[in-house]
């Protein structure tokens, strides 16, 4: 790839990572004033803020690379559903608390492998964002791990719901480990991460955790894909409608 192509691809990657962080941050923020008790409410808000901050850093970098006058707000508020390239698992409705924590565990575990690699990127900005995010992800992962063990190993009802969440989410995890051409090229160039390499460790960690929690990992008998190409579930449109409503009502508004 030429340097220009690489820069264009890096911009695309920064946007994808920004989309991942923004969409999950928005989903988590829906727990504010809805969580099971006050401390969890605050914890959800804290983690949501970490993801929204992460989205701002990735979008800010994308704006710098685009150098066409667009800023982070243009990426967050002025793109439509098909222009968002986040993984589908992140846009699914928050469900019950077990669903939220199981999704969080699957994603935190993925992020912890992904960010550890992105820290070594030869792109200094991506490496810096990853190093910062990695520290926060350690806290996220400890919490989602503890919750899934507690819920899986808890009452009959909490176990049933946790296992069910795992079944409902499992088919959405496959695309996390299926980099497209752009992501493979960036990995080869030492900028991105080849996510295929992350799967074995991710699966291993999950198996150990499932044993501890008295859960079992589902069969790989179905998969839904499309996030990275902009083919979304119906949920993203609803999420964006809420996320972008103020900016659409008051174009160009700032806090």
């Amino acid at each position, binding site marked *: 790839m030429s340097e220009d192509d690489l820069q264009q691809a890096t911009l695309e990657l920064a946007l994808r990572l920004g989309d991942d962080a923004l969409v999950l*941050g928005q989903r988590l923020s829906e727990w504010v004033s809805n969580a099971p008790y006050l*401390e*969890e409410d*605050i*914890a959800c*808000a*804290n*983690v*949501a*803020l*970490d*993801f*929204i*901050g*992460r989205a*701002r*850093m990735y979008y800010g970098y994308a704006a710098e690379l685009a150098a066409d006058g667009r800023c982070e707000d243009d990426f967050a508020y002025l793109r439509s559903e098909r222009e968002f390239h986040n993984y589908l698992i992140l846009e699914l409705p928050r469900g019950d608390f077990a669903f939220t924590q199981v999704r969080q565990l699957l994603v935190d575990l993925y992020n912890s492998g992904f960010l550890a690699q992105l820290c070594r990127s030869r792109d*200094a*900005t991506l*490496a*810096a*964002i990853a*190093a*910062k*995010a990695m*520290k*926060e992800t*350690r*806290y996220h992962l*400890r*919490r989602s791990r503890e919750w899934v063990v507690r819920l899986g190993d808890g009452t009959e009802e909490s176990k049933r719901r946790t296992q069910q969440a795992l079944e409902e989410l499992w088919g959405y995890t496959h695309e996390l480990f299926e980099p497209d051409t752009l992501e493979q090229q960036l990995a080869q160039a030492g900028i991105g991460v080849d996510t295929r390499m992350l799967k074995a460790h991710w699966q291993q960690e999950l198996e150990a955790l499932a044993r501890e929690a008295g859960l079992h990992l589902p069969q790989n008998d179905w998969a839904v894909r499309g996030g990275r190409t902009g083919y979304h579930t119906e949920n993203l449109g609803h999420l964006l409608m809420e996320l972008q409503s103020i900016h659409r009502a008051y174009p160009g508004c700032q*806090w």
Partner: protein
Amino acid sequence: MSSDYSDRLRRREASPLAALWELLDRVRDPELPVLSIWDLGVLQDVTCGNGSVVVTITPTYSGCPAMEQIRADIERVLRAAGIEALEIRTRLAPAWSSTWLSPQGCARLRQYGVAPPSDGVAAEHGLTPDAGVVCPRCGSAHTLRISAFGSTACKALYRCTHCCEPFDYFKPI
């Protein structure tokens, strides 16, 4: 005293712009007003080039809303001192660490009722421990973590089983 703090201190002491550093001590963390941005480890450098003052800061947490306020306050303080040309640069690497807090800042936090990072022994990967953070009110180490996520991104919530009060712990990261 952590080496990260010493590096910052050396930079400050070697700087010819002592008056500006002192001026910036007036900029406080809006959530923890006992800490200046110097104490917090956010203020990295103050330089002067081409007639413009350049302030370099490193954000604490990715989504900390206080950072916007801090930027605005830096600008306000410098403009009030008659500095027209100024630039605030954000430096992401190396990532901010709670070990960058100044020793004075840690003492002031404790007085304020918030346990500084050094009043606990970090768990694996440097995370908040389950127990044993020294209570800033009564000094007991018989304390338990309630949540690693407190009222702001930088704090965890604990309770003391000796004096029975809850308290914040400025968490290690």
